[in-house]
């Protein structure tokens, strides 16, 4: 078995005495699409915050591998943009796009490339970048709305745009927080297909509530159940679903 690309070991994070993450261990392998589920307050968003530098763990290590070797880069020392530049992209739970900018500009700003002050002063779009933008716009089905202000898009379209922005930056790891929220069933399904199509080239972690969607994207992949800040269990969707502990803390509450 190869080395994990992302590895969190024994991570703890406390907010005002509340243990949001408690001795968590998590390993993500290259090309994997991992689904993370868990009841509200299980620590899913905090976990993403820790991975992306928005919060620092109290104890434990979070490491990332930028090559095939064992993960060696300590993410806890880095801040948001440094982690992003390493190739870890994140989509937020509530879609966060630049509402005052056009769809097109939103993507341009996310495009992989130099991120420095002077680079952006003298930035020019070359033709290959334009092609890439065009294909992205088609992928997220916003081609005809490329000049719309992003703020005018529907909720679902914003979710897509944000996924598009994520892809534009060509990350190695995608952290996707509730991508299907606010979408119609059809949109949700398409989102699932998109994510599945990315599997392999990218390593993906998806946090989701919608069990139908989880079932769709887990597709033989592993599902991690978080509970009270730690991993309750991990395994194939069916195994997890039949796990009595999971049923007790999560499914047993009547959701699905």
């Amino acid at each position, binding site marked *: 078995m190869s080395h994990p690309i992302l590895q969190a070991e024994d991570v703890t994070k406390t907010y005002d005495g509340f243990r949001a993450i408690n001795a968590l261990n998590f390993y993500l392998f290259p090309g994997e699409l991992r689904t993370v589920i868990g009841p509200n307050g299980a620590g899913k968003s905090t976990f993403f915050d820790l991975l992306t530098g928005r919060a620092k763990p109290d104890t434990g290590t979070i490491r990332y591998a930028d090559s095939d070797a064992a993960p060696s880069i300590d993410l806890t020392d880095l801040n948001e943009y440094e982690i992003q530049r390493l190739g870890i992209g994140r989509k937020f739970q*509530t879609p966060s796009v630049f509402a005052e900018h056009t769809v097109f500009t939103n993507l341009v700003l996310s495009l992989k490339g130099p991120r420095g002050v002077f680079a952006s002063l003298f930035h020019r779009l070359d033709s290959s970048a334009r092609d890439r933008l065009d294909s992205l716009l088609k992928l997220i089905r916003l081609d005809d709305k490329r000049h719309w202000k992003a703020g005018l898009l529907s909720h679902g379209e914003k979710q897509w745009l944000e996924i598009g922005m994520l892809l534009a930056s060509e990350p190695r790891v995608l952290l996707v927080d509730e991508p299907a929220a606010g979408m119609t069933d059809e949109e949700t399904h398409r989102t699932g297909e998109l994510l599945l199509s990315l599997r392999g080239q990218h390593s993906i972690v998806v946090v989701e509530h919608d069990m139908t969607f989880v079932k769709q994207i887990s597709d033989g992949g592993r599902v991690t159940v978080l509970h009270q800040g730690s991993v309750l269990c991990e395994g194939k969707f069916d195994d997890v679903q039949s796990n009595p502990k999971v049923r007790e803390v999560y499914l047993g509450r009547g959701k699905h």
Partner: protein
Amino acid sequence: MLRTLSIFLFLLAAAALSAAPDASRARLLAALVAPADQQVAAVRALVGLEDAALVPTLTAWRAAELYLVTTGTASPVPALLAPLPGDADGRLQALAVADGLPVKDPATGQPLTFAPKELKALDTTAPLRRAIRDVLEVAGVADPSPAVRRESIERLGQSRKADHLPLLQARLAIEFSPAVRSALQDAIAFIQLADPAVEVRLQAITDLAAAHSLAAAARFKEQIALPADAPGAASPVELAALKTAVKTIEDHWSRVNFFGNLFRGLSAGSVLLLIALGLAITFGLMGVINMAHGELMVVGAYATFVVQNLFAAAFGPGSLAFNFYFLAALPVAFAAAALVGLVIERGVIQFLYKRPLESLLATWGVSLALQQTFRLVFGPANVQINAPAWLQGGTALYDVAFAYNRLFVIGFAVLVVFGVWLVLNRTPLGLLVRAVMQNRQMASCIGVKTTRVNMLTFAFGSGLAGLAGACLSQLGNVGPGMGQLHIIDAFMVVVSGGVGNVLGSVAASLGIGVTDQLLQPVLGAVMGKILVLFAIILFLQWRPGGLFPTRSRSLD
């Protein structure tokens, strides 16, 4: 009040003049009309003269209120002016120093009346006034008023003349007031510093050290600094005693200053707290940057001014009831500022809850307009606010001074903080306020009338500003520009305390107040203030959310 007092004094003087032991009175009169070059000596010779007219006559002379009255062809008579009973024109009768009787018109035999400017006051010169003062000081040792006695005794002690020693010692034997006794002991010790006997001198040094006399420390240091061969230089034994004494006294005062600084810091912090509390509500909880907050304080201060004038008009400015105007002014100040706040909220701020930075601009416009309104209504000059008697003066404990108005401000700040805490945590309004402040939309979804809550909260914060203004009127000036002096300080307190946290504002204001007062003696007022500002800026680098930050899990 003052007028009654002066009438009383004159009556006293009149009584003193009338009981005339002839020999001493003649000496007094002789001194008054002595030739200019002998006058000082003649006055100095009056020391110890036992004549009831001595003190009133000399006091009047020194104040240029002793007049020469000429009647007909007779030579001018020195006289004091006293009110004529029952006369409304303010004309005064002259009581001759010689016999205490009114000077009469030689023709009609009726008492003559004068206005002060019709008469020539008996001239004095500076050396003469000093001589008069010296005589009065000696006389003052036996004055009925303990305050006068104490002051006279202190002066005699500082003059260090051995000839006053018997007088002081005699007084000590019969003095009963503890404060005057201690002053006497100090004065005696002071004089004894020049005693020929070394034991007496050493004892005097020890006594003064025990009394922590600062004046003594200054003298001791001068003596220590004298070269060994200079006249009056201390012997080695004495020198050691002097050094120990200086150390004892200085140690005492540095302790006093330390505790004094703490108290002053506490009081400065309380002032800051009062100013900032309203802002902690409107800015901290509601997120409105109200640049007119300072002007709301001014509203409170002017309200106090108006209440003061009403009380003065109704009860008279010297009356007992007048002293309670301030208590009546507090609720009025709160209400007035709250009302103005309400108008501002309805008129301007309600449209700007989603645009906090723009509320800054609009309220700045409001503050300009308010300032000009103050100018037009109350005039561009500061208005005069007289503190009620119970807020004047102070007391000292272990030499640390506690001014009553400062003590009041500290106590009042505690009360107001407690009040705010009660309102926010123990009333239905408080619950609604906290709900709305945490999430306006959610609160309105669950049926809270957010408009009303906003209105009331803002009015409440404004009212607190009014209370602060009322308090400040007892400490500083009240004028149209007064609000601008405090606004930045107030914002700094709220920001460094942590927005949305009243407890943070308490801690921050006390911290800033104490730091400022501790820095001031070392760096001076200006650098102290600058340093505090930079410290706050740096502090916020370290804790961007302030002392007690409020965390939020949303992205922006």
